[in-house]
C-alpha cells in the first residue's frame, strides 16, 4: 500500500515540483536539440539541457557535481561545440539539409 499522507507534506510537494520542472525542461530541450533545423540552435538547446541537469544535481544536494557539470559541460564542452559549429559553413549546411 502506498502511504497517501506523504503527499500532503509540503516539503515532499516542493521536492516533487522542482524535480518535475527540471525533468520537463531537460526532456523538452533534448527533444528540441534533436529536431532543430539550425545547428547553432541545437547547440544552444543542448547547453540549456546541461544547465537543467546541473540544477537537478543541486536539487539532490550534490552541489559539487552540479557545479562541476556547469564548469565542464557548459563552460568547456558546450563552448567547444559552439566554436566548432561556428567554424563550419552556414550556407553549405542549408543546401545539404534541403537537398
Amino acid at each position: 500500500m502506498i502511504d497517501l499522507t506523504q503527499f500532503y507534506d509540503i516539503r515532499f510537494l516542493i521536492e516533487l515540483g522542482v524535480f518535475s520542472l527540471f525533468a520537463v525542461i531537460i526532456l523538452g530541450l533534448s527533444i528540441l536539440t534533436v529536431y532543430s533545423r539550425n545547428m547553432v540552435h541545437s547547440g544552444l538547446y543542448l547547453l540549456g539541457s546541461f544547465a537543467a541537469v546541473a540544477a537537478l544535481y543541486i536539487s539532490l544536494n550534490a552541489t559539487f557535481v552540479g557545479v562541476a557539470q556547469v564548469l565542464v559541460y557548459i563552460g568547456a564542452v558546450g563552448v567547444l561545440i559552439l566554436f566548432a559549429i561556428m567554424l563550419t559553413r552556414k550556407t553549405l549546411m542549408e543546401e545539404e539539409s534541403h537537398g
Partner: protein
Amino acid sequence: MVLSAITEFAAQEPKIYGLIIGLVAAAILASVINVVAMLLVWLERKVMGDFQARYGPNRVGGRWGVLQLGADAVKLFTKEDVIPRGADKPVFVWAPIVAVATTMLVAGALPFGAVIIDGKEIPLVVANMDISAFYIEAALSIMAISAFMAGWSSNNKYSMLGAFRGIARMIAYEVPMGICVISVAIMAHSLNVVEIVQAQSIWFVIAQPIGFVIFAIALITDLGRMPFDQTEAEEEIIAGYNTEYSGIRFGLLYFQEYIVMLLGSILLVHLYLGGWNGPVIPVISFISPMIWFFMKLIIVLVALIWVRVSLPRFRIDQVTDLGWKILLPLSMVNLAWAVVVGLYFA
C-alpha cells in the same frame, strides 16, 4: 508579535524559511548591484576625465555630474530598439538576458563585506557554500556563451569576429585563472570564499606574488577591458558583438560589463587582498570590516581604470600568446609554490 511568529516559523521549517530569506536577499542583491554598476560608470567617466585633464560629466546633477548616470539610463531605455532584418531573432533577443543572468550567478556566492555583531564576524553573503570559489570559477567560465550568442545572431561579420575573439581570449585565460584560484584554495585549505578570507592572516598577495599578477591580468582579460578589449576594438571591428545592438538590449550588455568589473574586483579583493580583514576601528567596530573592504575595493576599481587609460590595446595574437605561452606555465610555477609553502611549511 510578527517577529516572534517569524522566529517560530523559522524553528519549525528551517528549510522553507531559508528559501524565503534567500530569495529576498537575492532580490535585494540584484537591485543593489545594478545601482552600484551605474555608479561605477559614473566613477569611470569622472576618473578618466581627471586622468586626461578634462572635466568628465559635469552638466547633469550639479558640479559632480552624479545624475549623468540616470540620464544615460533613461536614454538607453527609451531609445528605439532595432533588430536587424537578417538577425536570428530569438538568439539575438536572448543574448543580453543570458549575459546578465550568468553575471548574477557570480554575485550570489560572493560575500559583500562583513559586520561584527557581539564580537562575532558575520559575512554578508547570499549563498554561503563550501565550494563557492569553485562555483564562481564555473559561473565565470560560462560568460563566453552570451558573447557567442550576441555575435553569431547579429548576422554581421564584425560581430562574428568579436565573438571569435571573445571565445579565444576567454578559453586562453580561464585556465591560468582557474589554476590561480586552486593555488589560493590550497594555501587556505578551503574552497569557501569566506574561509579563504578568514585564512589570510598574511594577505595572499604577499604569499603568492606571481599568482596575484597572473590573476590580475587574467581578470582584466576576462572583463574585456583595456588593454585586452580586442572584442570591441573600434578601429578594427567596430564594436565587436555589441555592433548591432541598440536601446535597452545594448544597455543590458553595457551594464553587464560594469557588473562583471565590480564582481571581478570583489573577487580579487577576497582572494588576494585579505577581503574585509583589517584592524578593528574602536568606535565604529560594528562596520569596521565594511570600511576596510570598501577601501580595498575602491583602490582596485580605480587601479583598473588607471590601467585602462594608461595602456594601448594589444593585438589579438599577442593576447593569446601571453595567455598560453607565459601565464599558463607561470601559473603552474605558482601552483607548485602554493603546494610547497601551503602544505609543507604552514
